Every structure is written in structure tokens, then in C-alpha cells.
């Protein structure tokens, strides 16, 4: 078992013939992901590398393949439209890799996706991998190994770093999810924590947050009240200088400035093990799995 992506995941790649889309489609297929189709307007009827059928629209792609998942590599100005197209076509899990999506676009996209009953991961995220089953996105497959640690993170390469250290230490993963660092995203820490709590194959969770906002504090509150499985957390930006965020009003509305110290304190108060360095995850998780 795993969360959000597994052996039953069938994927349409939106932007399959683009530079990033084609490269990562190959990587996903190589990993064993069931890529059943792609969408590039104007190339409907062709095949990607003689194997994967290409469609003009998501409506056509879903009708022909019955896919349940899509992954988006289109340029930022078209990403909002691509997400809405996927949700409208009946896709239930949409992974948006695209970086640089205007935040105002996401204010329209988020409620639309919700009303369609779909889940959006990202945008501006590395995607998801359930080792040995399916990878949707760009997380390097070879740093992962199957196991029972759930990983959730706001960052891309920091996720790789922690997963790499876990794998080197023999601690495999059930699913690794990158929720992305954009101010408005589809899936947050709590969504992932709740899913890991329910997943019988996850025994502990590694969570990597960052300064800014209050997502980590809310996640800590969730862990305290709703989780029985152990959680270990890390906050990047403990030494970052203040004042590099939005103006005052943002901090006030979120009810806090979102400093690392504040988030670490919230973790500690919720019984979350605090990793001071990425490498600390190994010992902290191992101790909690015993």
C-alpha cells in the first residue's frame, strides 16, 4: 500500500512532447509507471516514441484510456488551464510539476478542482513516488527504495537529500510526496499526514517544512490530535534572515511571521521528533520504529 499513487495508477502526461514532458515521460515509463497517454494540442493521433498515444484534449484522452491520474509539464501561463481541463475531464489525481504559475490563477483553480472532486498536487512540486509501484513527476527513482516510512515535503531537492539518507541507512519509503513551495497549492501537509495515518504500510512519517506561512504549525496540531504514528520533522531556513517575505499584512493574516523557531516549537509541543540536520532523520526514525 501507499498513498495517492500505486499499481492502479494510470497516467496521462499533459505536455508530453515538450522538453521536460518528454524527458520525464521516458523516466516514468522506465520506472514502471503506467503511462497510458499524453496530450499535446495538434498532435492527436500520433504516438510518443511509437508507444504512447497522443490526444488533442484531456476529454479525448480520458475517454480513450480511462486514466485516473494526470501529470502536467506545460509552461506556467497555461498550467491553470491544464489543471482545470484535467479536473473537468474526470481525472481524480492531478500532479502539476510546472514552476512559476501566477498565484492569482491558483485562486480560481483551487476551488474548481475541489468542486470537481479531484485532488491536485502542486503546482511547482516534484510530484510523488511510491517506490516499486509508481512514480508521477520528477523524483529520481533510484534514490528510493520500498519500505514503511512516509515522506512529505515542501521542497524538491531537500526531499531527495532526506530520501537518499533514509535509503542509504536501509529505511525504505511507502510514498514520498512533494507538495510544492507555492503560496497556494492543492495538497497540504495535513492531507498527506491523514493519508499516511490511514495507510497500513506506513509506520512513521518524515516531514520537511520551511519558513513562511503557518502550514507546519497546523500540521503539528493535526499530528497532536489525530495521529497515532510517529512523525519526525525538519524546518529549512533556521538561519534565513527575516524580511524576505511578503509585506506586513501577510504575516498578520496568517497570525504569525512563520519563523523556524516558532515552527520547531510547534513540532516539539506536538511530540514530533525534531531533526536539526537532514541526516538526523535516520536515527530519529529508527528509534521510533523499534
Amino acid at each position, binding site marked *: 500500500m501507499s498513498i495517492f499513487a500505486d499499481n492502479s495508477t494510470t497516467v496521462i502526461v499533459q505536455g508530453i512532447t515538450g522538453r521536460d514532458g518528454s524527458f520525464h515521460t521516458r523516466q516514468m515509463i522506465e520506472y514502471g509507471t503506467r503511462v497510458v497517454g499524453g496530450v499535446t494540442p495538434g498532435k492527436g493521433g500520433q504516438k510518443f516514441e511509437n508507444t504512447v498515444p497522443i490526444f488533442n484534449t484531456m476529454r479525448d484522452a480520458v475517454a480513450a484510456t480511462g486514466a485516473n491520474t494526470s501529470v502536467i509539464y506545460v509552461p506556467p501561463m497555461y498550467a491553470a488551464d491544464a489543471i482545470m481541463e484535467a479536473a473537468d475531464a474526470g481525472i481524480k489525481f492531478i500532479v502539476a510539476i510546472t514552476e512559476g504559475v501566477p498565484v492569482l490563477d491558483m485562486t480560481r483553480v483551487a476551488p474548481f478542482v475541489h468542486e470537481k472532486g479531484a485532488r491536485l498536487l502542486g503546482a511547482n512540486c516534484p510530484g510523488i513516488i511510491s517506490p516499486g509501484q509508481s512514480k508521477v513527476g520528477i523524483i529520481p527513482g533510484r534514490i528510493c527504495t520500498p519500505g514503511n516510512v512516509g515522506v512529505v515535503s515542501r521542497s524538491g531537492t*531537500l526531499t531527495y537529500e532526506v530520501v537518499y539518507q533514509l535509503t542509504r541507512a536501509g529505511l525504505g519509503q511507502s510514498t514520498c510526496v512533494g507538495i510544492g513551495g507555492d503560496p497556494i497549492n492543492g495538497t497540504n501537509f495535513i492531507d498527506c499526514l491523514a493519508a499516511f495515518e490511514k495507510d497500513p504500510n506506513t509506520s512513521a512519517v518524515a516531514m520537511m517544512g520551511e519558513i513562511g506561512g503557518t502550514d507546519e504549525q497546523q500540521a503539528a496540531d493535526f499530528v497532536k490530535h489525530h495521529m497515532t504514528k510517529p512523525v519526525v520533522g525538519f524546518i529549512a531556513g533556521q538561519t534565513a534572515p527575516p524580511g524576505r517575505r511578503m509585506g506586513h499584512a501577510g504575516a498578520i493574516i496568517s497570525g504569525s511571521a512563520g519563523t523556524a523557531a516558532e515552527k520547531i516549537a510547534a513540532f516539539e509541543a506536538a511530540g514530533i521528533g525534531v531533526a536539526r540536520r537532514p541526516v538526523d532523520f535516520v536515527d530519529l526514525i529508527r528509534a521510533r520504529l523499534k
Partner: protein
Amino acid sequence: MNIHEYQAKEILRAQGVPIPPGEVATTPEQAEAIAKKFGTTVVVKAQVHAGGRGKAGGVKLARTPAEARDIAGKILGMQIKGLTVLRVLVTPAEEIASEAYVGVILDRASKAPVFMVSPAGGIDIEEVAAKTPEKIRRLRVDTRYGLQTYQAMELGFFLYADLKQARAAASIMQKLYAAFMASGASLAEINPLVVTPKGEVVALDAKMVIDDNELDRRPAIAALRDESAEAPSEVEARNASLTFIKLDGNVGCVVNGAGLAMATMDLVKYYGGDPANFLDIGGSSNPDKVVAALRIITADQNVKAILFNIFGGITRTDDVANGIVTATRANPLKVPIVIRLTGTNEDIAVKILKENGFSASADMDEAVKQAVALAKGGKAA
């Protein structure tokens, strides 16, 4: 992207927000001429991307054109929070009966723009929120429908009991919202929004921050960028598609990905060192980016050691290795370099580096410890 007060005011004026006239001067003589034209007491205001301009002495009243010239002479060239003032806005002084705050910001928790208004304007709104939260009212706007008139009126009546003034404020808020959406802003605020002794509601100061992701589709807004108002190293980094923030330490850091970059800085501190910067070379890197990164970092005289921490996913580590070789061949390094890289094409990268006299490690903690020791003038472990 930050824009200046005078630019934000131009955007709001174009939407119909009542704002007193004003002109920009870059010399004391221009300031004098503008003050003479207005023929009244003026305010001379520093145009820099920093808050607290008033407290720093960057906002002053001038009763005569000659005084405007003297004051502009003092403000121009002044440093406010490390930024040099190159422009002043000269605007007629208004008489003020009351001051309010009106702002709209993209709020991550609400996943929407949120209005925030307070009848206690003119001062630090954070202080108002902390001490008298009952004096602040918030309103979430669904961007699919926009700010409705009744919503704007609710906010207007929170500010003013008088119907005419409440209506005027509501109209200003609808225009502020229109400007916010049309500019791709993440923040737009009027502070203060004042009532004049005649009972008119006008905006005396304006601030806007634009979402960088909007600039590609809004060339007119992108053209408002004032590179002279930013640190040169940060301008160069942006032009090379890097994210760079200068800090005060001596370990220069080059990392791919913001989260890993912050974690690397944290680890430098953890092992007793001090990072000289935050630098994210981003995703799909090419050797040119690495060359630019090294040029920016080595321009900082404080840097005593350079640390590369690259985890190749999309980023190909051989691209990074080639960039290091190219950059150091053109400009030999005067400080030691520690390279940690792992991931995509790691074998090729290590080979390239070895052939050119560099060593590379695959362990983040070891690399950071080494860089910290070297920056302190010690030997690598």
C-alpha cells in the same frame, strides 16, 4: 517585484482612485521647480523599496520651493536600510482629519485575496493588529466573482459612519481590487487613506508588490522594475535566472533548490560557520548558470571558502561540473572550494572534476564541515 510609491499611485490613479498630484525629482533643482508649480506646502518623499521611510528621515514637509530644494538635497543620496535614495516624490501636503488603513493581500491560508481595513491608519498596521485587533476587519474575496458592492460597503461602514464617506471608501476599495487583479499583485495597500477637513476621502500613500510569476504576461508592469533600486548582485543573479540573497558570513554557498539551499545554510551555521549568501541555481541548470553563480559569489570580498551542494534530479551534475571548470579556467579562484554533488550523471561529473584538479564528495555533512574549516583559515579535514 517591488515597485515605488509613485508607480503604485499611477496604477491606482488610472483606476480612478482619488490621489493628490505628485511628480518625481532626481535633483534638488527639479524638486524646487515642482514645489514652485504646486505653489503650496509640499511633502518630499524618498522613493526606495523599504518600509519605515518616515522614521528614517526620508519623508519631510517643505513650506517653500527653496526649502523643498534643501530637503531634496538631503534625502537624495541618503541610505535607507542599505538602499540609496535616487528619486523623491514631491506632492502637495494635505490637511488630514482622520487616517485609515486599506490593504489587500494574497493570503495562503485563505487561498484568496483578503482585504484588511482599519480606522486606525497612518501607523504600523502590525502594531494595530497586535494591540487592538478589534480595530481590524478582514474580508476574503472569491476571485471568480470579485469584490461585490455590498462587501465593499461593509468594509466602508467599518471605517466611516458617514454614508458619503463609506461609499467613497467602498468605491476606492473596488478600484484598489481592480488594480490588484489587473497588475497581478500579491499586495496592494493604501496607508493612509485620509478624510480631509472638507470631508473628501483620498489616498495619500500607496504600496504594491507584484507576483514575479505574472511578469511574463504583463510587460507594462514588468517595465516598472527599477534595477537601480536593487542590490547589483541581486540584479545580476536574476538576469542569470538565479535566486540570490546576500548575507554577512564568509562561506559562499551554491545550491540547487530553495529548500536544500536553506538547509545547507542551516548546516553551515550548525557546524559553527556563517553563510555568505543564499543562492539557488534552480532546476534545469546549464553550465552558464554556474559560471554566473561563481562570478557573483567571488565578487563578495567576505567570502573565504566556496561550498557547492548539488543534488541532481532535473539538474545534471555534469553540467555543474563543466560550469565550475569553465568559470575557474577563466578566473582562477583565490579562495578554496568544496564540492558536494550526487545524483544525475554523478559519475561523469566526478570524472570531469578530477581531470581538472578538483575533488568532490557525496556527503553533505562532510562537505559543509570542510568548507567551514577552510573559511576559518584552517585546513580541510
